[in-house]
């Protein structure tokens, strides 16, 4: 070696990696809300355009004080739970049929794709005729909204079950039912659960549409009323309640995933 210079190898990795920064996340939220409050107080953000966060919070407190929160929440939750439960049960059932039987798939899956994309608000007038203006049409709206994504998630899940596992089942002479119960269903479960995530948030979004129809109580009805009264503080409060409902649902489904899918990482 004539040249005796020694240099450290230059570092070229780094970047493109995410360091979680919870502090920053919190700060952004806090700063945003403080700025918004400040803007509202100084009149920089007109009250007409956006109420102060404190006003929205006051509206929320008022809901609690007048005991209306539970009435609204109770009514909405009942609709959501009923509609979502039946929608997903039916959806999983139909999804499995489509996933398992070629004939059913040929018949139903184009139909499902065609109906999936139809905006449910557009159908409200028909729902009123079909299911009345009572709880029926509200539950039905949510049921319809959650049914289709669940079907699609379920048969997608069945399709994605590792074919080599099915082949293994066959090679051990398992019965058709065993293969479905022990291989296909658990294999499709992750997809089905992530379908639940989607259908839950669709259900919550549809609450507002569903409660357009003759609902006295319900978070959606509260929001609609606030909108028609231009009571923006109540509007924001109502929307925040929906957001919290969404977070709660996501949390519950996350727990369910942890429980049912502990075999994955």
């Amino acid at each position, binding site marked *: 070696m004539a040249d005796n210079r020694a240099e450290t190898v230059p570092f070229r990795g780094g970047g493109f990696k995410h360091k979680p920064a919870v502090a920053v996340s919190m700060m952004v939220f806090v700063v945003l809300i403080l700025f918004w409050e400040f803007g509202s107080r100084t009149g920089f953000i007109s009250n*007409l355009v956006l109420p102060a966060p404190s006003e929205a919070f006051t509206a929320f407190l008022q809901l609690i004080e007048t005991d209306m929160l539970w009435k609204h929440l109770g009514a909405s939750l009942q609709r959501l739970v009923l509609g979502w439960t039946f929608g997903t049960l039916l959806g999983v059932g139909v999804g499995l049929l489509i996933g398992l039987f070629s004939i059913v798939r040929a018949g139903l899956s184009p139909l499902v794709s065609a109906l999936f994309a139809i905006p449910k608000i557009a159908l409200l*007038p028909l729902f009123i*005729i079909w299911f*009345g*203006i009572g709880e029926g049409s509200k539950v039905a709206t949510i049921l319809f909204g959650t049914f289709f994504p669940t079907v699609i998630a379920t048969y997608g899940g069945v399709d994605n079950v590792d074919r080599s596992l099915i082949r293994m089942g066959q090679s051990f002479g398992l019965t058709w039912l065993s293969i479905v119960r022990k291989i296909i269903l658990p294999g499709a479960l992750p997809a089905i659960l992530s379908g639940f995530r989607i259908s839950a948030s669709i259900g919550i979004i549809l609450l507002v549409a569903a409660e357009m129809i003759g609902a006295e109580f319900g978070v959606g009805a509260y929001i609609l009323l606030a909108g*028609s*009264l*231009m009571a923006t503080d109540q509007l924001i409060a109502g929307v925040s309640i929906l957001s919290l409902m969404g977070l709660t649902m996501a949390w519950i489904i996350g727990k369910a995933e942890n429980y049912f899918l502990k075999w994955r990482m």
Partner: protein
Amino acid sequence: AAADKIAVGALRFTSHAATFVAYERGYFKAEGLDVEIKFFQAAQPIAVAIASGDVDFGIAPISGGLINLADKGAIKVIGGVLHEEPGIDGQMILASKKAYDAGLTAPAALRGKSFGITQAGSSFHYVAHKIADKEGFARSDIKLRPLQKVGAIIGALKSGQIDSWSIVPHIAKGLAKGPTVEMIGKVSDYIPDYQVTTVFTSAGNAADKKELVKRFLAAFSKGADDFNAALVDKTAGDAAAEEMVKLIHKYVYVSRPYEKAAPSIRNGSMRINKNAKLNLTNVEDQLAWFQSENLVSKTITIDTIVDASFVETY
């Protein structure tokens, strides 16, 4: 000087005829106003549009939204438009055939029955409570069904899913002709001086452009006079009436042929207040009702909503 450009919000209803007449017959132009008519699907958004500055003048019933917008300093009521008055067909109270057969033959029997409204805080809501008040039962004894849209209410009434409703005469008459709906009373029996709709503008216009507002009201009133003469008082003769219907048909029921539209236009003609007179007494009553229902803040006063300096009030 160049004409002032203004936008007027309107619905494709006969009750907005004064605007159409003033526009078509050049009354706005004569006042130096270059008017653009913007059409809406419902009254409520007109108020919002004034708040957002998209529209300068509009006509709408007093609603919770309108009061709240006034409270936020966005709009002001400056005159009256439609008004219930004895002798002229006003809003009517309807019952579904099913409820009628079961005994709902008069408004007095509304206790415990369901009543369709678009939204809480709408004029339908006010009417229902006024009936309860006058008939002497608790307001909560009428079960209100908010259905958002007039069409939805009609569907629900026809199919017997709600028992009753109140609505402007031409729609009421049309429905009552069918087998599924019966007429059971008049709103004017319960709210004798009902100021159904009002004309309003932005708070800014009302405070700073009084001249402009006055010119608008003058032109608007001329339109209203023509309309009243042709179709309400029928003092202008058949030819004028025919011509008026044709003028209105340019804006209302446009998708129907003239022969079909004309009767509806004639039936739907209610008096428009002369000189946009405003029944302040009734507006105050409406405000009090909104406040009693907790739909608007109790601290709002009539002056917040109405600028009474432009027209005669009573």
